[in-house]
């Protein structure tokens, strides 16, 4: 286990030649990047490009096969100290259907050692405009509402790194606005974001760094700065066309 090994510089999130293989297949193949606090890396790519696997490695849920990844200088998969800093929003809601929205978020707050879990859960649900449904069982909520609760769950402990896997999927306009607002607040407070999405407009509107992933590798990676969204979209189509 490499927990506790520190990267030379304490970047918010850093990957060095990261590889994650499943048998002979490399789902993530030599990915390197670094972002600082308050920055956002948007990762685009077709289905099966390895984006979700990359996020699961960064969330400490999968062990890297080769290479290294760090969150705030702590090598992943890391221990409780690394996981405390991470908020992970995945395809799946990670919620318990029999519990209410409030109970789910409060459980996460307690597991993350938040000082006032009840209040933190209420604030997180309010930020996602879910207060009127806080005491409804998750199984009785629509898919979009479950997604909002899932986002509240991932943010209740004020993570310094947020990993988002297609977070806008299933959200209506109100939910998307609440999420954008919550991400803005998190970034302003110094959180780093890694966002995986198919939607170029959505990703580029948030990103300070952008990458296109194909076959497990970054085929294009750069700070966003001068990127022209239209030219980037054209480049994306060219780069992922063989997989499309």
């Amino acid at each position, binding site marked *: 286990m490499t927990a506790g090994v520190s990267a030379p510089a304490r970047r918010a999130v850093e990957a060095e030649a990261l590889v994650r293989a499943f048998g002979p297949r490399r789902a993530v193949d030599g990915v390197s990047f670094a972002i600082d606090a308050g920055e956002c890396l948007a990762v685009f790519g077709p289905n099966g490009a390895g984006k979700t696997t990359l996020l699961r490695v960064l969330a400490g849920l999968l062990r890297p096969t080769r290479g290294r990844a760090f969150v705030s200088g702590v090598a992943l998969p890391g221990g409780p100290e690394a996981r405390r800093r991470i908020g992970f929003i995945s395809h799946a809601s*990670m919620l318990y259907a029999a519990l209410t929205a409030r109970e789910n978020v409060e459980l996460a707050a307690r597991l993350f050692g938040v000082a006032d879990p009840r209040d933190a859960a209420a604030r997180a649900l309010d930020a996602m405009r879910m207060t009127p449904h806080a005491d409804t069982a998750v199984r009785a909520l629509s898919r979009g509402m479950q997604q909002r609760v899932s986002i509240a769950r991932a943010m209740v402990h004020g993570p310094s790194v947020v990993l988002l896997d297609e977070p806008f999927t299933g959200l209506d306009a109100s939910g998307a606005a609440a999420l954008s607002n919550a991400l803005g607040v998190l970034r302003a407070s110094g959180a780093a974001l890694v966002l995986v999405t198919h939607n170029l407009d959505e990703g580029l509107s948030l990103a300070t760094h952008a990458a296109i992933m194909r076959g497990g590798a970054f085929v294009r990676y750069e700070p966003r700065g001068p990127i022209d969204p239209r030219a980037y979209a054209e480049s994306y189509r060219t780069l992922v066309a063989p997989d499309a």
Partner: protein
Amino acid sequence: MPDAFGAALLIARKDLAIEFRTRTAFFSAVVFALLAIVIFFFAWDPTAVAASDLAPGVLWVIFTFSGLLGLHRSFGVELADRALDGLLGAPVPRHAIYLGKAMANLVFVLAIEVIAVPAVALFYDMPLGGARGVAALAALLILAAIGLVAVGTLFAAMSVNTRLGELLLPMLSLPFFVPIVIPAAQTTARLLAGRPVAESIGWIKILLAFDLVFVAACTMAFPYTIED
């Protein structure tokens, strides 16, 4: 951050709240237990086998198999919507997840025992030996349940992600249940026959030893079963 025991209590409380609301595993286990008691009762020839010889076996068959229903369910709830990722992503030690699951499973098995023991006593007309006998039997049931749950929780975690999980769990667990069930059944037989506890002390020591070994080994092994 909560310590390991605090996190385990949170997880156990969550599991019990889910089971209390859905009651799926508990009702299945209780119905199975009662049906098994009735079937054994009608298949029993009292002129050939004494009740005191049959009842301990009936009890432990019921506890073993109805316990498996709850054990399978305990990690099944974590698979839906990948809730297990939420637990694994929390800053709590991995063994706290195991201990929390095991605590909830222990309550589940004990609740089945509380229903099944009086039912067996009623059907087989078994005297439980007054307050002392009941206390001794209760202590034995708790000891044995700890061993069954310790092993079963680990194998439930291992088998839940497999395609044949429902088949794999009993196949993996039952051989490891044997060193728990034999001393438990032997001691139960003596207690139900009204024999003094001292007569079973050897079996109880074996049961205690297996409890300690299983709890320690399974707690240490658990992180390796869920990390990818």
